[in-house]
């Protein structure tokens, strides 16, 4: 007759928990630390593309001229967790084809400072990093 208490499952739970705490990241043991240390940031910065004075998604820019994406760097004194967006923008500019016909608009690429309050996000200053020209995807 089987016990009502799941002894085997409890044993697996305790052994895996203990081993993972002891050895850390050693396959197949893990402490699953992903997304654990958020470091308590409530201030940050995000990459912003400002086309002719209007904030637009950077990926909506059909062609960019006069910008050196490899030299775009976030402000050092402010937390920045969106490195992948910056990488995507760099890749987007690097792989773009020849410029299309039509009028180019003035473009500012920079970083928008953000602060999170108990009421929600508030935007601080926009710090332009580079200026150039861009053509919006129709």
């Amino acid at each position: 007759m089987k016990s009502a208490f799941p002894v085997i499952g409890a044993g697996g739970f305790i052994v895996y928990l203990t081993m993972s705490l002891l050895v850390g990241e050693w396959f197949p043991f893990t402490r699953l630390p992903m997304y654990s240390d958020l470091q308590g940031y409530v201030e940050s910065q995000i990459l912003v593309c400002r086309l002719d004075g209007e904030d637009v998604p950077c990926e909506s820019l059909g062609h960019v001229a006069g910008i050196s994406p490899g030299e775009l760097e976030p402000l050092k004194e402010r937390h920045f967790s969106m490195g992948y967006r910056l990488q995507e923008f760099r890749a987007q500019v690097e792989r773009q084809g020849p410029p299309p016909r039509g009028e180019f608009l003035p473009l500012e690429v920079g970083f928008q400072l953000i602060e999170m309050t108990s009421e929600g996000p508030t935007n601080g200053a926009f710090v332009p990093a580079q200026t150039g020209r861009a053509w919006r995807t129709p």
Partner: protein
Amino acid sequence: MTRAPAGRWALAMALLMGRVAQIGLTVGRDGFASPRGLALWMDLEFFTTPAPWIVMSAGFLVALLAFTFRKQETMAGWGVFLLLGWVTFIELCVRGGEVPTHAKMLPAVALFGLLMGRLLRRGRTEVEQDRWGQELALGMVGAMFCLSALSKWGAMGGGWTDGRVHALLMYERGVGVSGLGAELRLWMAHRPDLCGALATSTLLVEFTGFLLIFRATRRAWVIAAVSLLIGFQVLVGVGMNLSWILVLLALAWSRFGSHDPSDQSEVAAA
């Protein structure tokens, strides 16, 4: 050929997904960023070139198929497990860091539990081996979630539930992009209290991972855990791995191995 239960198929699919998630991290890369262990003594960068990678991937697929259809099951299962471990080692050598990508970890741990159960009950009936394996897998997977909560608590204590921190993450990932998910993130970012409540419930679900081992609480807990994983993916863009969800659903609603007649009698009695 023994017909594989749905749970076995789910585990096999999850293991395959975990392996596929490692592809970009383990082949066609320029050497090791952080050689370690055996790689300090031997030139193992050869394993990131296409030829050995294809051979090992083919071996993985063959072992996975054999495991799924219960042909030389134990040997095939350990083969899958060891190949995943090897590729995880190569992945860490290639990209550095101490923490492997998590997509394959939960399926690998479930497989580990199943295989350990079979090992510990070697010589007994297939049903008995699989019952031990299933229960060990339940315990180990539950422990993973508890460990995740302990990591959060250890890193930030109660500060992990500060709604402003999570609201900021959602805002960063919602602003400047389009789509329904982005709109939801922005909506949530303006409600830090709600974000804090969700963070608290996340910790609660993870800390109670042990509920997975109890039949009475298993399904309710899995529903909560799957909701958590989906919520993480929608709101923050991390956390949801279909492989994890498959394994959790299989643990709650199916079996990895043989049908256990005693379970059926209990269900019938209930």
